[in-house]
């Protein structure tokens, strides 16, 4: 655990711009005015589709790429003038990048060897780092003799042995199988808490980001779409892009019919829905989000309430614990619902009423009508 008070402005990125020229002559804005502050003990994730600029930002912090303009401060000092080997950050690479000609001990000890740490201390710290990642006693083996998961741990041990102020992780889990990935996610989170340093994690996997992060930065086309806790990102996405990128979502475009300041009635393609939203005015065009798990199947004996959407079931898929229902509303819009209860007696083609909680609706800011993000 870190003894110092965590500083909220440990890493500060100010107006960072970086563009690339593609071979075809086009321009890609990898970073288009990024502003970001990261705390010294935070697990922060850069999340976005490929080409959103997340790896570029990581490479710039590590020193492998330069910035067109802007500033990056780490603990108050500019990073941009130092070459990669003088920066107090270390990186875990996507393909691990273990040195194939060195054994595990020499791989992990590399940072200490180039720093000239005495043999005795060096060996002790190598053993400690390997123990920390749960991989003791493999010092004499070669990287090619280890499994992918073990190589991942070696890469992690190698990166933390220099006691960096910040660890950069470039999609480190993407090559692992699903079970191992889940396990490593938790281990990474624990390791971060134990070390008490900032982890900057880059991924395109939204599930991974939601599982591990203290905060998530959603990037798209070089811009920050949203910065927030996993809960905020999931339940209150700030844009249509974030809504579609994170989790399964039903997005409705509609017009506000009436609002009493508490509850609003919105017409979405012929169906009126009720949602708890204070600041909607009648006549306003809105985009609404309702996650599939917020639907419930209305039982037949209940009277038809006002908080249900009628739809026709097209297909139902059993995905382990829940049933995923693919439905279609009267206006033709597809609808996805996750239903926990048993589905006895419901067949494709049947009309259903899907109930919702008016408080579960979220108005996606900034987008009105059918415009695609």
């Amino acid at each position: 655990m870190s003894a110092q008070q965590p500083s909220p402005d440990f890493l500060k990125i100010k107006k960072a711009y970086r563009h690339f020229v593609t071979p075809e002559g086009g321009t890609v804005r990898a970073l288009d005015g990024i502003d970001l502050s990261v705390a010294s003990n935070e697990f922060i994730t850069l999340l976005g589709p490929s080409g959103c600029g997340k790896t570029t930002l990581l490479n710039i912090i590590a020193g492998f790429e330069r910035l067109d303009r802007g500033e990056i401060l780490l603990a108050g000092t500019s990073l941009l003038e130092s070459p990669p080997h003088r920066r107090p950050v270390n990186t875990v690479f996507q393909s691990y990048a273990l040195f194939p000609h060195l054994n595990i001990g020499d791989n992990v000890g590399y940072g200490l060897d180039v720093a000239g740490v005495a043999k005795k201390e060096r060996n002790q710290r190598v053993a400690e780092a390997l123990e920390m990642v749960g991989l003791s006693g493999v010092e004499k083996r070669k990287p090619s003799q280890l499994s992918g998961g073990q190589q991942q741990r070696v890469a992690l041990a190698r990166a933390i042995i220099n006691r960096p102020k910040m660890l950069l992780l470039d999609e480190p889990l993407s090559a692992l199988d699903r079970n191992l990935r889940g396990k490593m996610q938790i281990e990474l989170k624990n390791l971060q808490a134990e070390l008490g340093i900032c982890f900057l994690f880059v991924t395109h996997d939204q599930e991974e980001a939601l599982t591990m992060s203290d905060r998530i930065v959603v990037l798209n086309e070089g811009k920050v779409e949203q910065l927030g806790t996993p809960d905020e990102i999931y339940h209150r996405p700030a844009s249509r892009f974030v809504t579609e990128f994170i989790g399964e979502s039903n997005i409705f475009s509609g017009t506000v019919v009436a609002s009493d300041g508490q509850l609003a009635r919105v017409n979405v393609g012929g169906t009126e829905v009720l949602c708890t939203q204070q600041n909607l005015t009648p006549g306003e065009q809105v985009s609404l989000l309702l996650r599939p798990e917020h639907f419930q199947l209305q039982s037949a004996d209940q009277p038809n309430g006002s908080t249900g959407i009628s739809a026709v079931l097209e297909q139902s898929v059993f995905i382990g614990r829940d049933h995923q229902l693919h439905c279609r509303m009267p206006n033709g819009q597809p609808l996805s619902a996750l239903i926990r209860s048993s589905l006895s007696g419901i067949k494709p083609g049947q009309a259903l009423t899907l109930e919702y909680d008016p408080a579960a609706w979220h108005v996606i800011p900034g987008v009105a009508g059918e415009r695609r993000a």
Partner: protein
Amino acid sequence: MRSFTRQQKQLLLLLSPATLFLGIFFLGPLLIMAVYSLLEPGLYGGVEWNFYHWNYGRVLGWADGFYEEFDIVYLQILLRSAGLALLTVLVTLAFCYPVAFWISRLPSRRKSLCIFLIALPFFSSMIIRLYAWILILRDSGFANQILMSLGLISEPLDLMYSGTAVIIGMVYIFIPFMFLPVYSSVENLDPKLIKASQDLGATPFTTFRRVIFPMTLPGVVSGCILVFIPALGNFVVPAMLGGAKVVMIGNLVEQQFLAARNWPFGATLSMVMIAFMLLVVSIYLLKAMKNPQHS
């Protein structure tokens, strides 16, 4: 008679053409040379079928058993040739290593073009290319004309028929032999390893010493061997560019066979040269194998 498995039979069948060819056309002549080197030279060429060890004595410095005429001129020539071959290796390596890095960073189409250009000299005869060097290096050649018209020199430099000319010619001839293996190992080096080394705090020089050089060493070793061996025995370049001034072991062998018509002594010189090469290469390989590379 032991019986072979199906796999062994297939292997035997596949290997037999190469084995036969090398057995007849490589080992055969080598064996003839080994035998000739132990026979007495005939008075007017040819050989007398008597065992005669003074061929080897002569290489080491004793001419036909006359101790007072001790002269190590042949060993000197062998060592000078080895020195020249080593210099060729070092110059080609110094040239090819950075160029290989530069080319490996190019976009793939220009990469292929560069490799094609490096291999281009193979398309024409070595003799013709060496004649071109004579045109460049002679007193009234291009090199002197350019240097004089630039005012850098007032009189033509004596470039032809010198050790310098031989080195220039050898480096020119052997660059592709060094470049191709070095390039293939540089090309296979994962740039992420260089990044990882820098990231862990290594300066560019340390990164080179601890990662880049060890990882590309196999290519460097192959390149050095591929240049050293033919450079040591080469006689065309010294004959054309070195004139009578620079006698190399290759020229000596050639003279013994063609001019002096002393086949046994020519064969002896060849055997000594082969032994020397084997010695140098095995030392080199042993050293390289001590730090075993990744598989």
